[in-house]
């Protein structure tokens, strides 16, 4: 699967199927209205599926909407799983693999979506995560829950699109 002309290949990575379906619906139905682009939305419900799609099946998404905390991973031994950062962990692996296989650079943008407890303020944990996200090339972090305006705002800013349609 390769990038298509004006269509933005988007990968939504989240363990919540209802959330994924809603985001897919909004991007598919309103992309042209809001940012003047069509979205070809793919979904991955966990880290393994993300790796399968981008490393084995060759998907090169223009945009990845990445959940940072997967509640329903393989093992939930840590009482406070919101302190983990599976999203950043897996994207670090993916980027490393891309580098290994000479597929970088290509213009994939990542938007980190998280409901973790460290999203606001000057919490040191949050500063660490923000720094790590920046190091990995994450363009923006969007806290959950969000509405469609916030979502399209983040996308247009990340991809340089004008809200309302066209490139800024």
């Amino acid at each position, binding site marked *: 699967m390769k990038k298509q002309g004006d269509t933005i290949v988007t990968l939504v990575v989240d363990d*919540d*199927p*209802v*959330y994924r*379906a*809603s*985001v897919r*619906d*909004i991007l598919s*139905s*309103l992309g042209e*209205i*809001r940012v003047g682009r069509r979205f070809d939305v793919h979904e991955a419900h966990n880290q393994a599926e993300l790796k399968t799609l981008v490393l084995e099946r060759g998907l090169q998404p223009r945009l990845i909407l990445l959940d940072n*905390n997967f*509640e*329903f991973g393989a*093992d*939930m*031994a*840590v*009482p*406070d*799983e*919101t*302190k983990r950062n599976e999203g950043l962990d897996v994207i670090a692996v993916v980027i490393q693999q891309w580098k290994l296989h000479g597929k970088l650079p290509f213009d994939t943008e990542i938007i980190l979506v998280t*409901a*973790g*407890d460290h999203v606001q303020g000057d919490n040191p944990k949050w500063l660490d995560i923000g720094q790590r996200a920046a190091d990995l090339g994450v363009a923006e972090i969007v*806290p*959950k*829950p*969000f*509405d*469609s*305006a916030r979502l399209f705002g983040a996308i247009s800013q990340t991809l340089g699109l004008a809200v309302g349609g066209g490139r800024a």
Partner: protein
Amino acid sequence: MKFAPKRGIPYGVAGQTGNFMRIGILIFAAALSVAALSVPASAAEDPVERVTVQHEPRAEAPPIPPVLSSPRDVVLPSAAQVPQEATFFPPGLVPWALFFTFFAFTVVVGFQHWILSSEAGRLGFRPARHSPEWRLMSIFTAALAAMTMIQLGYAAYASAAFFQTLARAPSFLWLVFLCGFLPLPVLLIEALCTVRHPGLGATRHYYNNVRLSEGRDRWLARGLERLEDWHRHCAVTRFPGAMPVRWGLALARLFLVYILATVWLGLHVRRTKGRYLEARPYRAWGQLAMDLHILLVVILALFGLGFGLLGMDPATGPMLLGVRVTGTMVIRGYLVSLGVTALLIAWLALPSDDTDSFARGSIGRLGMLAALAVLGLIAADIWISTLPLSRRLPSWEDLPQGVSLLGLVRELGKVSYSMRQLVGGWAPPGFAVATLVLAVMHQRAIGRIWQTLGVNAGQRLPFGFMLKVRHRGLNLLGPIKLALSEAQILAASPGQSDPQLVARLLERGQESCGRMEFWFDDIRKGAAALDWAFTGESSGQWVALSDILTQLQDSIRSFILVENRQGIIPPENVTMSISNDLKGAKLDINAASLHDCLSNIAHNACEAIWSQPQQDNFVGFVSILARAQDDPLYPLALVIEDNGPGIAPSLRQRVFDPLFSHGKDKGTGMGLYQAQAFMRSIGSDVSIRVSASGGCSVVLPFPIDLLVIPTQREVPA
């Protein structure tokens, strides 16, 4: 093969490893005896005369203070004054016999534990009251208690005589120091276990958290399989006399400290009064201490016998209390005896005016420090042992005993290393062994314990729980917020949104609302379980078993219809069967709590079925069976089975951990925790097995005291 850690290593198995510790001490005692026997025969010909220290002529003796307020005032001969042929072994047959009693006592205690634990495991031990096994084990327990107490008395005297003799040979002072130090690791482990889980079965938790080697793990795992059932039935938390027993035990330990302190002081006075001590008050106090000792030993023996008898309540597992009480008292008594001995002798070894041996003084100081550390640990242990079984530790930082224990090991390791550096690498043998023990403990065991305690400390649970509540809540709000915002946009400017999209989003928002309702119900249950408010206490009314089952059936049907909107497996492909072997049975139980407990397990069963890979013509089933059991104490068991993928053996214990969620959609990780809390609150437990179909079978036994089972004539048609 990588070994998956198991939880709930039975006491009996863990007790085996405690035996290794004792065996280590035994080897040391054997070495001492060999050393004693290796004394040249010529030296033993007239031991009384040879052991006697050369006194200064009376006229030239240093002035004795009018009142000796401290043993430090006792003047010991310097090393140069001790004749070269001096032997440290006392004369006569009696001390020899006592010494070997002391020697054999360790063996006996080790074998007692071994026999009891293996026997109990073989029996799957929970015999009916007044059954032959019950009588046999009761007699055995009582005999054990009495025998142990007698052994303790003899051991105290024997070891006192032995170490007293040692004290007169300065060249053996380092051995005394070693005697004081060797029990430290043992005591440390015991105390750490008590910190982690005060009360019975504490030792096993140590082995849950500390895995010394893969081989040991496999060995423990095999033992676990064999003894699992027995241990589960030995839950002592329901035993109404548990707290008095624990307080009594703590008191008995205090008695032990006092007794052993007095006996050595008294013995010392008796043995040395003709040589070093002339002061009358000092001698009088020693006599009094001896008399008190005799009195208290009698009291202590009665204590031990009483506790042994208390331990025979079949509801608590007859062996457990008896074993633990006697075993603990004996072991700690042994440790205390060594610690006190080392303390007193090290005190005496402190340099005085007429002793110029630097090494002797230094070793004396170190021995005293070690002995003080041992006694401090014993004091901490006694205090910890009084904590209620169910008490949640407020915070790890509030555990001075834990911090001090761990810090003590680290600091002692540093000190021992520094000391060896200071003296050019040389150290007495005891010091080297101690350094090695400390290093191994610190590197392998303590770090792991620290980590485990840090993760599992009770105070972190509510915090983690609240964070999870927040995280999940925000996730569930996502679809709702998207739907509402789009509906708002559609209403304000219809061209900016799509009515069909908004309809779909609203439907998903609705679904999220439904999930939130279920989830908030889970939170309530979880919060109740965390608060220890979740109880099986009766509301005062008998509840018919059939009503409970009917209610559960309705709950499952509703759950299947409401929750399975994803259409993974159609509701019609999930069948449910309910059967009741005990028609007319009633339970004196909190019906609402029981319903929550059962529905949690049944809902898990449904979700397990849905989580399977889809296959054509797959029909899931959930079976609920109220089964009569042969067990007189637990005549009823509710069994909930499914044909889902089952639970991996490595996860069977972990699924009961709070906030542990595995392989299912949107679990709080509180359901099984809450179910277990409930079952434990009624004196039972939950067990997970593999069902005939390869799925999961959850068994909940109900105790007889909560049940009314009609006779055949009373059973309704």
